[in-house]
């Protein structure tokens, strides 16, 4: 080995504490990068393969009822390659030993067996026999939640009649990677599932013999999907079409795409922070190393090494540190990616997860880190190479200082000499001081962003489930029903309060913008289901006009006073002009709200409701479930408590994971920055501190100078960290906002405390390590050497 290379290794060993601290920061950055990008790549790969191999459809449409003969007309639409008609129906299930309301969506599979589109992957068991009308395949998450196996029986209330179904298999479909009831906040695997059944059996039960109420299609590559959707809507209009939509608006695919978007944003935000911090640390450490090695550099140059050779020498040092960190990061990142993959697989179901990391991704991460680290150290290396040997061999003159700003404004009088030393040091290298503060602040900010998610979720639950939705259960009807039903429900034993609601699918248009959603008609003086403003105060539903969610308003570019076009997508399919009365804050979903009476008047349907909100005695809940299961009119019941629990269950796991990762990263940045700052300060000032020890200063007093400076940096960094963290949260909330949900911008005091505590704890640990070195200062040695 060349002697200079040996020097690189020895220098590394000599600075091992600092090398480790920097490597940990790089490790964290790389791990975050690999985890997010890797998870995204793996999920994309897994999804794409599942979609391809199981023929995920491109276009979807639901309708009331159409004869099978219509299929031919749909197939003639230019660009359509495969058409499959289906029967899809909601069903209530009666599961032995589980008294709560359970609903499912039943989807027909063709008589010849395998669907052409959205094919089933059978995890266990087999496909149903088309000749038997009681056989069914159930979705995997639902089967797992109840422990169902092939051969088990479940009771289904099909069109008001109870029927025992036999589970022949457990399956997955590309159409239901994520299974979620429409309008739900999060999946509920126990209370909602998918059942696949032979077309004939299902058709008979739902009066769909020779007819269909759902159609899926594949389109030819390059086909104009927009035009196909328009033609579809035209064809289906007469048959009660509810508006066709493309794959990108299909709920499972949509949620998955949202998840990818979050992963990509995270992969952009977090690793960038780490790489910047690491580059800064490398810069500081290398420039310090270079200045302590001034004389060695001079000697090397005197022996005839050129600037390039010396530059390369230090570049090697930097690259080795970076590679060390990257290697650790790749290993940790792949491990985290697997954990994250498992976490995803609990919610998103694929036949199998392909855990893959693209070597190019690793290479890109490596190149980015090495380059930014090299750029960070370029200046220091250049400075080392620039000096003439004679200049470098002379001792450095005493560093130049001046009276600090705080002293100049008159506070100086009350400061002890050690405090002055602290202030002047902080002020002498303003850039370095600022970057150190920034580094620590970033650690604090990272912590804050992780706490932000759980604060946001808590706030969301508080607002959504305790202020806006106050009902115990929501009962949905198969189709709009006379409003009198509200009185029937109110008469049931245990029911305290009932409010009816009407929900109607619509498309809003304003100028060239349009959006497909629903209008909720609510009782204007209702107490159970309210809209809130941005301060969580109830917003009154105007007697006429429509109330829009704030995000929907933005999407459409509408403000109160404007008039929007409302195309009703059911019944008479009329088109109306409706004035926008006001906006309401909406975190989940993107809907419009109207006075129930005004909505019914608009629809010219008479006084009808699509369901009701109920408050009932919790002792009578079970009785009510039993009654609702038997009511043919009731298509499903949703319990508010279950919704809250599910939301927390699903969120909690991923939140815990992200908090764990973020804490790990925040600590590593905090330790990296604080330890390095302390370590560098110690080596720069050991002579000064030893002199003070010689003059009779105690260890504690000397520590104050060094650690006091760090304390000052950390205490300044924390409020800055809060500021940066809050801005990052705003950025994240903005970047992740979609029409599915918006993250409320809430950071609770305990999150601030936690962020500060983690940074302080990391700082204390670093300080203790440095303090141990400080206690071992060699008093005699330092007096003998000049700087």
């Amino acid at each position, binding site marked *: 080995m060349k002697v200079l290379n040996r020097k690189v290794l020895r220098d590394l060993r000599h600075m091992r504490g600092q090398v480790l601290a920097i490597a940990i920061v790089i490790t964290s950055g790389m791990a975050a990068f690999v985890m997010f990008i890797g998870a995204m790549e793996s999920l994309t790969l897994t999804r794409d393969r599942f979609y391809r191999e199981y023929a995920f459809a491109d276009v979807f449409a639901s309708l009331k009822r159409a004869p099978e003969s219509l299929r031919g007309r749909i197939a003639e639409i230019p660009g359509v390659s495969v058409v499959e008609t289906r029967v899809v129906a909601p069903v209530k299930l009666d599961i032995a030993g589980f008294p709560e309301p359970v609903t499912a969506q039943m989807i027909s599979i063709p008589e010849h067996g395998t669907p052409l589109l959205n094919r089933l992957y059978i995890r266990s068991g087999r496909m149903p026999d088309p000749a038997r009308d009681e056989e069914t395949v159930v979705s995997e998450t639902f089967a797992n939640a109840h422990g169902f196996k092939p051969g088990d029986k479940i009771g289904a209330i099909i069109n008001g009649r109870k029927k025992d179904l036999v589970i022949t298999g457990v399956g997955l479909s590309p159409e239901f990677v994520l299974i979620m009831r429409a309008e739900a906040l999060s999946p509920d695997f126990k209370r909602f599932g998918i059942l696949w059944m032979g077309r004939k059996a299902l058709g008979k039960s739902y009066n769909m013999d020779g007819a269909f109420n759902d159609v899926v299609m594949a389109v030819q590559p390059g086909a104009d999907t927009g035009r196909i959707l328009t033609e579809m809507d035209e064809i289906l209009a007469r048959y009660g079409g509810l508006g066709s939509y493309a794959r990108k608006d299909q709920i499972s695919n949509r949620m998955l795409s949202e998840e990818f978007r979050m992963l990509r944003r995270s992969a952009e935000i977090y690793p960038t922070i780490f790489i910047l911090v690491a580059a800064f640390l490398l810069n500081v450490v290398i420039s310090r190393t270079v200045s302590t090695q001034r004389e060695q550099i001079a000697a090397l140059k005197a022996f005839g090494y050129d600037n390039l050779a010396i530059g390369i020498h230090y570049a090697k040092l930097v690259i080795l540190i970076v590679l060390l960190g990257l290697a650790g990061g790749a290993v940790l990142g792949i491990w985290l990616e697997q954990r994250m993959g498992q976490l995803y697989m609990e919610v998103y179901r694929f036949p199998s997860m392909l855990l893959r990391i693209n070597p190019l991704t690793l290479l890109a991460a490596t190149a980015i880190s090495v380059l930014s680290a090299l750029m960070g150290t370029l200046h220091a290396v250049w400075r080392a190479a620039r000096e003439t040997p004679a200049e470098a061999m002379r001792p450095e003159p005493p560093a130049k200082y001046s009276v600090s700003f705080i002293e100049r404004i008159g506070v100086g009088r009350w400061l002890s000499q050690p405090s002055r030393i602290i202030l002047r040091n902080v002020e002498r290298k303003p850039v370095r001081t600022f970057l150190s503060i920034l580094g620590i602040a970033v650690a604090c900010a990272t912590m804050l962003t992780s706490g932000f998610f759980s604060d946001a979720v808590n706030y969301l639950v508080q607002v959504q489930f305790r202020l806006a939705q106050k009902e115990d259960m929501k009962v949905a009807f198969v189709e709009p029903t006379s409003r009198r039903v509200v009185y029937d429900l109110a008469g049931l034993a245990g029911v305290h309060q009932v409010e009816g609601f009407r929900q109607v699918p619509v498309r809003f248009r304003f100028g060239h913008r349009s959006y497909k959603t629903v209008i909720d008609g609510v009782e204007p003086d209702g107490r159970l289901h309210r809209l809130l403003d941005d301060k969580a105060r109830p917003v009154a539903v105007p007697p006429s006009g429509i109330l829009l969610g704030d995000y929907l308003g933005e999407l459409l570019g509408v403000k109160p006073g404007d008039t929007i076009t409302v195309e009703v997508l059911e019944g008479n399919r009329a088109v109306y002009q409706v004035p926008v009365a006001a906006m309401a804050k909406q975190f989940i979903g993107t809907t419009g709200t109207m006075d129930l009476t005004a909505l019914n008047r608009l629809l010219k349907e008479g006084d009808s409701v699509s369901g009701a909100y109920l408050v009932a005695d919790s002792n009578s809940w079970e009785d009510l479930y039993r009654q609702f299961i038997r009511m043919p009119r009731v298509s499903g019941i949703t319990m508010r408590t279950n919704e809250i629990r599910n939301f927390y269950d699903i969120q909690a796991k991923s939140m815990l994971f992200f908090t764990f990762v973020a804490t790990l990263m925040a600590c590593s940045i905090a330790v990296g920055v604080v330890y390095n700052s302390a370590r560098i300060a110690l080596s720069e000032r050991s002579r*000064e501190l030893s002199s003070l020890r010689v003059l*009779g200063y*105690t260890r504690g007093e000397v520590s104050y100078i060094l650690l006091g400076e760090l304390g000052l940096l950390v205490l300044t960094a924390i409020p800055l960290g809060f500021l940066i963290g809050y801005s990052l949260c705003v950025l994240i909330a903005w970047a992740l906002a979609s029409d599915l949900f918006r993250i409320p911008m809430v950071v609770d005091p305990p999150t601030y405390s936690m962020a500060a505590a983690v940074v302080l704890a990391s700082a204390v640990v670093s300080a203790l390590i440095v303090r141990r070195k400080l206690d071992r200062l060699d008093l005699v040695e330092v007096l003998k050497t000049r700087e």
Partner: protein
Amino acid sequence: MVQGEIASRQNHSGNNVVFQVSGLTKVYRMGEFEVHALRGVDMELYAGELVVLLGPSGSGKSTLLNILGGLDTASGGQVSYLGISLTQAGDRELTEYRRAHVGFVFQFYNLIPSLTARENVAVVTEIAKDPMTPEEALALVGLTERLDHFPAQLSGGEQQRVAIARAISKNPKVLLCDEPTGALDSGTGIVVLEALDKVNRELGTATVIITHNVDIAGMADRVINLSDGRISQVTVNTEKKSPQDLHW
């Protein structure tokens, strides 16, 4: 504790002995070798006297000074300061001892670069029991005009005089100087020695100056020669020279 004991001895002790050294040895371990820096030194230092320790490098003079100053511990033998043993003292006691009783002057000044001349002295006066003011101390070394200059703005000789002012500002019983002129040219060196001589005369501080410069020995009351870890010769100057009369 040691502090109080030392104070009472100062008041009641009849004799003038500041340091009593007997059979002092010091062995360093340098890798696999043992270096015998001191091989049995016996000496005394009296109040108010100026002693020059002479000897070639490696003769053990710095080791002796470091042990006297409480910067290093002995391997064997006894050192007592005003009758109190330094050989048994721990880190805390030695820190306290340096803080209250000893002034140090080093070859490379060891000033704090971020503090002005006045503040460098205040570093000591702030923690001392009965110090003079930084201004008084700096006036003693003739630096009244440079009070608010930072080390980077002072010449080598001026920096060393600040160091002397810092060392004497606590009114120490002893002043220990390790090659105080070692980094200076002869003209500047003499100015520094004048400052030390003045302090010795006016404050009566017992002063030990280490040097390998034989000419400096002329200003001492006693000259102690060290070689190979032992005292080889002690000379009492019957006629002390003034620093102005020294040449090298």
